[in-house]
C-alpha cells in the first residue's frame, strides 16, 4: 500500500496537532516554564513541520506525474524509486481475494489471541493460529497439523518449562497446570 507523500503528510500533520492539543492539558511543574508538556509539544511541532514539507513534495510529485512526461528535472524522484501514479496505490494483494484474506487474518488472529488467551489458553490458540496460517500459505493439511502441534508443544516446553514464562493454560488448566 503506497500513499502519495501528501497523504502521509496530512495524516502526520493532523496527528501532530492532536498531540500538541492534548499536551496543553498537562500540568506545569510549579513555577517553571517547562514541564511534562514541553517534549510532546516540541516533537509535535517538528512532526507538523515535516508533515507540511511532505504535503508540498507530494503535491509537486503528483502534478509532475500528471504532466506529459518529458523534460522535467529528475532530482525529486529519489524519494519514489518506483513511480507512484495517483494519490494512493494499493498493492496487488488487495485485488487478490485470497491474499487479502490472509493479510487481514494476521491482525485478526493476533487480536483473537489478545482477547481470548486468558480463557482459551496458549496451547489451543497457538495450534489454531499456526494451522490457519500454514494452511492458507499453502502447506498440505496433514503437514500443517503436524507442524502446528509439534511447534506449539516445542514452544510450550521451551518457554513455560525452561524459561518459566507463565503462558496462560486456559481451558487445559486441569491437565498442564
Amino acid at each position: 500500500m503506497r500513499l502519495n507523500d501528501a497523504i502521509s503528510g496530512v495524516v502526520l500533520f493532523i496527528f501532530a496537532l492532536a498531540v500538541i492539543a492534548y499536551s496543553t492539558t498537562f500540568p506545569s511543574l510549579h513555577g517553571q516554564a517547562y514541564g511534562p508538556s514541553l517534549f510532546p509539544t516540541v516533537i509535535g511541532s517538528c512532526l507538523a513541520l515535516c508533515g507540511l514539507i511532505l504535503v508540498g513534495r507530494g503535491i509537486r510529485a503528483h502534478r509532475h506525474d500528471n504532466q506529459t512526461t518529458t523534460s522535467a528535472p529528475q532530482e525529486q524522484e529519489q524519494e519514489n524509486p518506483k513511480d507512484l501514479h495517483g494519490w494512493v496505490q494499493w498493492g496487488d494483494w488487495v485485488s487478490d481475494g485470497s491474499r487479502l484474506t490472509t493479510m487481514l487474518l494476521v491482525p485478526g488472529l493476533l487480536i483473537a489471541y489478545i482477547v481470548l488467551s486468558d480463557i482459551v489458553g496458549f496451547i489451543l490458540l497457538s495450534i489454531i493460529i499456526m494451522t490457519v496460517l500454514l494452511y492458507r500459505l499453502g502447506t498440505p493439511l496433514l503437514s500443517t497439523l503436524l507442524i502446528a502441534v509439534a511447534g506449539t508443544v516445542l514452544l510450550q516446553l521451551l518457554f513455560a518449562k525452561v524459561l518459566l514464562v507463565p503462558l496462560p493454560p486456559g481451558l487445559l488448566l486441569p491437565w498442564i497446570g
Partner: protein
Amino acid sequence: MEAIFLAFSLVLDPSVLGVMFLSAVFGLFVGSIPGLTATMAAALLIPFTFFMDPVPAIAAIVTTVAMAIFAGDIPGALLRIPGTPASAAYCDEAYALTRKGKAETALGVSLVCSAIGGVLGSAVLALTAPSLAEFAIKFSSFEYFWLACLGLSCAVIVSTGSTLKGLVSLLIGLFIATIGIDVTAGHPRFTFGNVEMMGGISFIPAMIGMFAISEVLRFIAAPNAQHSVPQQAIKHVFRGIGGIISKYKLNVARGGVIGAVVGILPGAGADIAAWIAYAMSKRFSKESSKFGTGHVEGLVDAGTANNAGLAGAWVPALVFGIPGDSITAIVIGVLYMKGMNPGPTVFMNQPELIHAVFIVFFLANLALIPLGFIAIRLSRTILLVPRHVLIPIILMFCVVGAFAINNTVFGISVMLFMGVMAYIMEENGFPVAPTILGIVLGTMLEQNFMSSMIKADGEFSGFFSRPIAATLGVLVIAIWVLPLIKMVFRAVLSRRVQQTKP
C-alpha cells in the same frame, strides 16, 4: 601475583568450567529468540546463583550474557529479526548480506568481532577499572543529555534514503517514548487512563513488531517477491574472515573503544554502543554509500562494540556499585549476596575474586568462537525451511516473545500495532530503525534535559558549564553543522566552476 594464581585455580575448577558451558548453551539459546534479552537471561539465572559459590555464580552470568549478545545476531542476519536490542542497529545490513547469499560472511564476521570485542572489553575492565570508573562517575545529567543527542544524530547518519522521512521516523519514536508516567512531574501522558499504558511502551515488543510482524505482512502481500533468500550452505563460517578483519582492523579498534567507553557510562549499554559504532563506521567510511546494501564494514564496528560494552558496564558496578546497564544491576545484587560488596575494598580485601572475574571474562569470550560456531551451524537449518512454513512459526515465537517481556498481552498489542505501522512506513520509504532508536533514547534525552534545567535554574548555559559536557556539546553541534557547511561550500565551489568553464 599470588592472588592471580589463586584466581586461576578458582576458575579452572572442573565444576566452574561445567557451569560456564551450561550457561553458554543457555545464553546462546535465549539470545537467539527475539523478545528474550540478555538481561532476562541474567535474571533467570539468579535463583540458581543463590546456591553457588561466588566464582561460578559470576561465571554463569558473564558467560550467559556474552553468548546472548552474540546470539542476537543470528536471527538478525538470517530472518531480519534482531534477537536482542543490541543487534537492532545493524540487523538490516546483516540481512542484506544474507540476501546476497553471504549469510556465512555476515555470521562469521559477527562471531569473530563479538569475540574480539569481548576480549578488548575484558582487557579494559581488567587493566583500567578503577581509573576509568573515576571518569565515568563524573557524568551528570548535562553530559548524559549530550550523549543522548549524539545517539540521536546517529539515526540521521544511519538512515538510508530520504533524510526527511528518517527524521519523521525518529520523531515518531521520540513521541512513543513520551507515553506513560513522566519522571519529571509524575504525570501520566497519552495513557487515556489505561494502567498498562502508564508503564510506557516497552521497546522490545515494539522492536519485534517493527521487524518481525512487518516482515510477516510483507511476505503475505507478495510471497514471490524479491524477499526470497537464496538457499545457501553455511559451512565455512571462518572463510575469508581473516582478510576482512585485517582490512578493517582500525574499525575493530574503534568499535572496541566506543563499546568500552559507552559501556562504562552508567545508563548507556551495549545497544546504544552498537548504534553509535555503526553510525561512526558509516560516517568515516570511504565507501559509506555501500552501507545498508550488505557491506561488512558496519558489522565489524558494531559487532565489536556491543560485546565490548558488556565488560565496560562492570567497571562502575565493581568500583562504585553503580550499574553500567540493566545486566550489571542484577550482577550487583548477586555480588552483595555473595559477600563481594562492590566498592574499592573488594579490590583490596578479595583480589583473588576480582581477578577471577577478569579471567572468567576472557575465558567466556574465547569460548564464544567454538560455541558460537556450533550455534551458527545449527541455525543454518532455518534457511532450509521453506518460507511459507517458517512464517507462521515465526509469528508464534514473536507472540510468546512479546508476551514474555512483561508477561502481559499488552506486549502483543504493542507488537501488532507497531508491526502494521512499520509495514505501512516501509512501503512508503520511511526507515524503521530511527523509530527504535527514538524509543530507546527518548526517555534518556527528556529526563536529562529536564533534570539539567532544574539544576541550572532554567539557564541553558548550564549545558556548557562543565568541561566534558561542553566538549560533547560542541561535538554534537559539529556533527549537525559541518555537513551543512560542507554542502554550502560545495555548492559555492561548483557554481564557481560552472562560471569559469564557459
